[in-house]
C-alpha cells in the first residue's frame, strides 16, 4: 500500500466531504461538484495497487456502517434500548456519511479485488451523487433524533436511513461473491 497516494486521496476525500457538508438548500442542486470531478481526474490515474487499496478501504468503511446499523437495530429490539450506544453508532454514521462519495474513485469498480461497485456508478454520476446526498441527510437527521433520545423519532429516522442505504445498494451494488 502506497502511503503518500493514500494521503493524497484522503485530502481529496476531505474536500469532497466539505462540499457535501454544505447546507441542504445549496446542496439541492446535485451536480458532481468541481471537487468530485477533480477527484475523478486525480483518481483516474490510480495504479492497480492504489485501486485495490481504495476498494479495500471503501469496504472497511461500508462494514463500519453495517456494524453501526446492526448495533442500533439490536438496541431497538431490546426491551430497554441503550440510547447512549445508539448515539455512539449514530455519530459514527453521521461522521462517515459525508465522505461516502469520495470512496468511489473511478477505476475501483467490480473486478478490482472484492469490489462490488457497479460500473453504473460512474455512468450515472448525478443519480449516484443524489443518492449519496440523501443518505447523508438521513444520517444527519438520525443523529439529531438519537441525540434528542426520543425512541419513536429514532425508529422513524432509522427506518429512513435504512431506506437510503437500500436505494443505492439496490441499483449500484453487485451481489456478494462467494
Amino acid at each position, binding site marked *: 500500500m502506497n502511503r503518500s497516494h493514500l494521503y493524497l486521496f484522503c485530502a481529496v476525500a476531505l474536500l469532497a466531504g466539505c462540499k457535501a457538508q454544505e447546507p441542504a438548500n445549496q446542496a439541492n442542486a446535485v451536480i458532481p461538484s468541481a471537487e468530485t470531478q477533480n477527484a475523478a481526474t486525480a483518481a483516474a490515474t490510480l495504479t492497480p495497487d492504489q485501486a485495490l487499496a481504495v476498494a479495500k478501504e471503501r469496504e472497511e468503511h461500508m*462494514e463500519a*456502517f*453495517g*456494524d*453501526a*446499523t*446492526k*448495533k*442500533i*437495530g*439490536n*438496541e431497538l*429490539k*431490546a*426491551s*430497554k434500548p441503550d440510547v447512549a450506544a445508539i448515539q455512539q453508532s449514530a455519530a459514527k454514521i453521521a461522521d462517515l456519511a459525508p465522505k461516502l462519495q469520495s470512496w468511489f474513485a473511478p477505476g475501483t469498480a467490480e473486478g478490482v479485488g472484492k469490489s462490488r461497485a457497479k460500473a453504473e456508478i460512474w455512468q450515472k454520476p448525478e443519480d449516484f451523487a443524489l443518492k449519496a446526498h440523501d443518505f447523508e441527510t438521513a444520517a444527519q437527521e438520525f443523529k439529531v433524533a438519537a441525540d434528542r433520545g426520543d425512541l419513536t423519532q429514532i425508529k422513524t429516522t432509522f427506518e429512513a436511513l*435504512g431506506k437510503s*442505504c*437500500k436505494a443505492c*445498494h*439496490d441499483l449500484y451494488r453487485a*451481489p*456478494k461473491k462467494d
Partner: protein
Amino acid sequence: MTSTAPPRRTDTATKQRVWDLPTRLFHWTLVVLVGLSWWSAENDQQDLHLYLGYGVLSLLLFRIGWGLAGSSTARFSSFVRGPGAVASYVRNRFHWPLAGHAPLGALSVLALLAMLFVIVGTGLFAADEDGLFSGPLAYLVSVGVSDTMTGLHEELFDILLVLIGLHVAAILLYRLALGRNLLGPMITGKAELEPGVEPMRAGKWWVALICLVAAIAITRWIIGGAPPLGT
C-alpha cells in the same frame, strides 16, 4: 385413468399405507419453502426470507413432535438405527421388506433434518450486511457473533444443497438401478409391501394438530425475541 395408463407390474389393490398425510404434507411444504427461501436470499427479498424461515422452523418443530408421537413410519424410533443396520442393508443388496425408511434413506432424512435445523438456527441470529434485517434472536448476541452466524447460515446452505442432491440422486438410482419407485409413495402415501409385512400404523389426527399448534406457538415465541431472554 387406468384405461389410458400403460400396463403396470404392480396391482394398486395390494398397495398399503406407508406414509401418512402429515408426513407427506411436511415433506412437500418443506420442499417449496426451502426452494423459495433460496430464491428470496438470492434476490434480496430479506423480509420474505425471514417469513419463509419461520415457516421452515415451524415445520421442523412439527416434525420433531410427529417423530415422537406420530404414525409408526414417521417415528424416529422406527428409523434411527446404528451403522450395523446400514452395513447389513448394503450387504443385502438394498433389500428392505418393512414399511418406512430403509437404513440409508433414514440417514438421509436425519442428515437433512439436522442440517435444516442448524441453518434455521444460525438464521435466527443472522443479520444482513446492511443491518436492515436480522433474525429474531440476533439482538441477544454481539454483532461479531451475529456476523459469524450469518457466514455459517450462508455456507452451510451449500452443504444442504449437496445433501438434497444426494437425496434426489438416490431416488433416481433406486428407480433406474433397482426398479423401485420411491417418489410415488411420498405423493400417494401408498406402496406395495410383501405379503405379511405390517403396514404403517397411523397416528392420531389430533396428535398431529397438537404438534402443529405447539410448533407454531414455539416459533411465535422465538419471533417475539424469545422473552424473557432479552429483558
